[in-house]
């Protein structure tokens, strides 16, 4: 093999320490071209680490976007902009909802990186920040190490704490319950409270399940079952309230509205694999919600005959 362009470095892990030091075996594999071997090894090493840092940073930006609910198209575009602005016009990026592939060109070889993306959730703050930082990098206001530092800090910055998120979800569901109530009456206050309790408990379950890497399908199923249970229990206990409206309001934060919209957008923009897999994800989550609520309501129906429905 005379040309070292076939030498592809693959790294599944994105550890900065490993990136900055090219492994000695790599150096051995690279044959020094007889004619143009004038460059000193130090500068070549520097350029190589620079390029791999660039790729790692593009990967990090894309990873944060995919994990926070950005569309595939946006994540790809952002990574490509970082590559191009960092001086790698031949960088090629390919994103799926569950994984990232980036390959960039160096002086005389190509680097490529693969990263698996798990734990998808919604965090619009991160989407906005990554967009902001990558734009600043493209305009030259941020250097590459600065960008990387900001992105790493962003990865651990969630803007709101978990209890605050649960509280917001609970209150929002309670208000949706009021919104879906067709008449003006004071029993709406009862529905408001029950919906709040149910949605709060369900979100607590889902968010703590996500921390422990439980599949979202199971937590969504259990969460919506919990909502239906609360609704049926409280309404039959106190004899007032509207079970339907409570459940419809309380499942709002569980509904996969974001992944549905992203699914259609991805399909429309031509990221067919991403689009179809996101549609599958949406259907799965919708089935989990319907299953959880349906299971509890079926039990309720078979026990009491369903006077409240």
């Amino acid at each position, binding site marked *: 093999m005379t040309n070292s362009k076939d030498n592809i470095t693959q790294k599944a892990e994105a550890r900065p320490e490993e990136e900055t030091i090219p492994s000695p075996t790599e150096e051995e594999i690279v044959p020094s071209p007889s004619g143009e071997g004038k460059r000193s090894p130090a500068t070549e090493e520097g350029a190589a680490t620079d390029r791999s840092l660039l790729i790692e940073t593009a990967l990090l930006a894309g990873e944060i976007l995919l994990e926070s609910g950005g569309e595939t198209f946006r994540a790809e575009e952002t990574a490509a902009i970082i590559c191009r602005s960092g001086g790698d016009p031949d960088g090629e990026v390919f994103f799926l909802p569950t994984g990232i592939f980036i390959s960039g060109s160096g002086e005389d070889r190509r680097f490529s990186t693969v990263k698996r993306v798990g734990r998808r959730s919604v965090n619009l703050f991160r989407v*906005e920040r990554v967009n902001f930082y990558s734009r600043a990098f493209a305009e030259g206001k941020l250097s590459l190490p600065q960008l990387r530092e900001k992105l790493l800090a962003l990865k651990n910055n969630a803007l709101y704490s978990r209890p605050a998120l649960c509280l*917001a979800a609970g209150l929002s569901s309670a208000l949706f319950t009021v919104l879906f109530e067709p008449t003006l009456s004071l029993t709406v206050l009862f529905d408001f409270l029950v919906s709040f309790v149910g949605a709060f408990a369900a979100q607590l379950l889902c968010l703590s399940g996500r921390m422990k890497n439980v599949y979202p399908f199971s937590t969504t199923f259990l969460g919506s079952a919990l909502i239906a249970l609360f609704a049926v229990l409280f309404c039959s206990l106190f004899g007032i309230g509207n079970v339907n409206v409570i459940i419809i309001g309380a499942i*709002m934060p569980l509904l996969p509205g974001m992944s549905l919209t992203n699914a259609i957008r991805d399909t429309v923009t031509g990221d067919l694999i991403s689009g179809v897999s996101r549609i599958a994800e949406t259907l799965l989550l919708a089935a989990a919600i*319907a299953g959880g609520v349906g299971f509890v*309501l079926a039990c309720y129906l078979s026990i009491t005959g369903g006077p409240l429905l």
Partner: protein
Amino acid sequence: MTSLLCLRDLAVCFGAVFLYGIFMSAPRKALFLSALSGAVAYFVYRLLAVALHHELIGYFAAAFLAAASAELFARFFRMPATVFVMPSLIPLVPGIGLYRSMLCLVQNDLDGFLAAGTRTVLISGIIAAAVAVTNSAARHILRRKPAENTEE
């Protein structure tokens, strides 16, 4: 009575979308505007659905309104449009349809399930399509001004 109901719904919808924005960790600057456009979009949907006797047109118009205003806000604040459009679409998401179709299934009413289920899928498709179309239209129409500033 009805105007009172409308007023209550508008206020409640605003609050619900605002809190949902916090739940989605939307940036603080975007919360107020997305809540406003969400409430207005929901109201437009209700008006059109009653006036035209057809839900689907109402859904499309409301989703289009939310998406178009989000694109404008996005150009103005230099944030991605997703940040604005996601919370404001939430009141339109057919949770009711999902629930109704599930309820029919539980009660062994397969005809009702098919009717409500098809409707739900259609509505979600229409909302998502309205957003996608608006987004790609905005990319072509509004691209010139801000994009050239960022590239240089």
